[in-house]
């Protein structure tokens, strides 16, 4: 089901964080979080992180509304161009950086021609699989990889407290945007439903068959159960902190999950989860792995909490049968478990372990 891809994404992120130093080094901040956290007092730091969050969330809201407007006025070419550019950047630039850092960590030499060949093949096949046709498993694998890359960027460039406040704020935003009648995501869902259109493949992970052009009669959105919520993808790429012009952004905030339709030939129900959800789950677990004082218990606790949140969300999905925000429950559990495990459980388990007590 959805556990395997979410788990895989988190494993990739945690494995990278624990082994590659690059993603835990502080090397500047994104322009979306301009306030620094290197302040002398706690109050100032808190204030700065809240301000950072406000800026980030408002950027996300603006982008979402922009996408909804574009979609409403049928500027499909613009949206497609935007998505293609963002996946180009993820698949080529971020992969190149990631590969470079992994090779550096393990002290493996690679010459430029090999590198060029590898990155080119990886990126080109990814573009084809995501935006056009390809084996489902390969498309799923690529979506997982780009979510993991995006999550790693967030983990590196978001300062500590801002990251936690942003995670909390974005789950509230997800809840509001998907469930309120005037929420942008809900409007997007309804517009897509009215037009009976399929969803953009670059933004949603689907666990079952993707309907291709040939299957005209199997119209996915004609069934009432299908909702199509998504948000535009966002990528920040202020790779250095000197305020150089960042690359054109595409924006990827929380997406929601919804049930696939049930047709006679298909036995399985496909469930879809937005890539933004993958990203923010992985950000939470990755941050827990990066800052949880080298402790695996915190990471594991967050992992279990997120999976349980996902279970509950899927349960609610089966009950309500409409688009639901996938972030709030999981992120809430994840945050609660992160802070409580880090501060309460860790001293307890450490003391038990040092006295060789088993409970």
């Amino acid at each position, binding site marked *: 089901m959805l556990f395997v891809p979410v788990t895989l994404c988190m494993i990739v992120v945690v494995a990278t964080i624990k082994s590659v130093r690059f993603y835990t080094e502080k090397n500047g901040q994104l322009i979306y979080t301009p306030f620094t956290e290197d302040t002398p007092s706690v109050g100032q730091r808190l204030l700065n992180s809240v301000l950072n969050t406000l800026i980030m969330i408002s950027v996300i809201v603006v982008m979402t509304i922009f996408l909804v407007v574009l979609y409403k006025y049928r500027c499909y070419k613009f949206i497609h161009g935007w998505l293609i550019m963002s996946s180009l950047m993820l698949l080529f630039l971020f992969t190149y950086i990631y590969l470079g850092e992994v090779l550096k960590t393990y002290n493996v030499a690679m010459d430029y021609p090999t590198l060029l060949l590898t990155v080119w093949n990886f990126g080109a096949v990814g573009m084809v699989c995501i935006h056009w046709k390809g084996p489902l498993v390969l498309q799923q694998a690529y979506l997982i990889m780009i979510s993991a890359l995006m999550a790693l960027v967030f983990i590196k460039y978001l300062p500590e407290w801002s990251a936690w406040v942003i995670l909390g704020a974005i789950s509230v935003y997800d809840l509001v945007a998907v469930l309120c009648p005037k929420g942008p995501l809900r409007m997007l869902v309804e517009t897509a439903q009215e037009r009976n259109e399929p969803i953009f493949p670059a933004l949603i992970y689907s666990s079952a068959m993707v309907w291709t052009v040939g299957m005209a009669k199997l119209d996915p959105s004609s069934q009432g159960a299908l909702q199509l919520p998504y948000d535009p993808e966002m990528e920040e790429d202020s790779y250095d902190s000197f305020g150089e012009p960042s690359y054109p952004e595409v924006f990827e905030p929380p997406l929601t999950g919804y049930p696939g339709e049930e047709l006679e030939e298909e036995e399985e129900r496909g469930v879809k989860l937005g890539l933004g959800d993958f990203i923010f789950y992985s950000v939470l677990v990755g941050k827990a792995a990066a800052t949880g004082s080298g402790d695996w218990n915190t990471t*594991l606790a967050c992992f279990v909490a997120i999976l349980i949140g996902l279970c509950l969300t899927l349960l609610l999905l089966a009950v309500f049968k409409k688009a639901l925000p996938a972030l709030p429950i999981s992120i809430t559990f994840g945050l609660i*478990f992160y802070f409580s495990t880090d501060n309460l459980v860790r001293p307890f*388990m450490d003391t*038990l*372990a040092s006295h060789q007590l*088993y409970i």
Partner: protein
Amino acid sequence: MTAAVFFGCAFIAFGPALALYVFTIATEPLRIIFLIAGAFFWLVSLLISSLVWFMARVIIDNKDGPTQKYLLIFGAFVSVYIQEMFRFAYYKLLKKASEGLKSINPVSGLGFGIMSGVFSFVNTLSDSLGPGTVGIHGDSPQFFLYSAFMTLVIILLHVFWGIVFFDGCEKKKWGILLIVLLTHLLVSAQTFISSYYGINLASAFIILVLMGTWAFLAAGGSCRSLKLCLLCQDKNFLLYNQRSR
């Protein structure tokens, strides 16, 4: 410490649990959900017991010495008690969620067991990958091996406790629940009463075998069915395997 120690201890501790997972749970998504729910319940019980321990420590005030040790023992006992309470809550949840409770019995304890084992052992495992010499200050050099075996025992014990506990709840024999709680306390207590690894492990294994036999009988097994299974003469089992292919 080498990769050999890491992999060896990891497989000793988690091998049987992984095998149980692959053969009984991985095939059905519903059981995976129940497994994760079990792990979650154990986690919540650990959280509450850490909270209790923390509060007790704050109230009694941070003094080093024997007070801390007694506080720890108190914390461990409270934790065992809360774990069993949450096992009961988990039973209630499973009862409400599914009718065929008997058929998912290994799951019930496995969730608890895996989380418990992982939380006790994973930090030790990750330390075993780093540099160092075991036992340089006079402790036993078999530390990793002992921890791995103890973790294995705990995981399997949780599985058996789960089966026996659920069986007791189904048949409304509350004495069984008390026995599970007492054996859990016993296993936990002997880890700090005795500082000799050998005795600890041996008695834990004895309890494991006893609980295992009890769980097997509670799940409906008998000497005859065991013999049939081992000699591959169990028609039901063979037919079931054929069908599922």
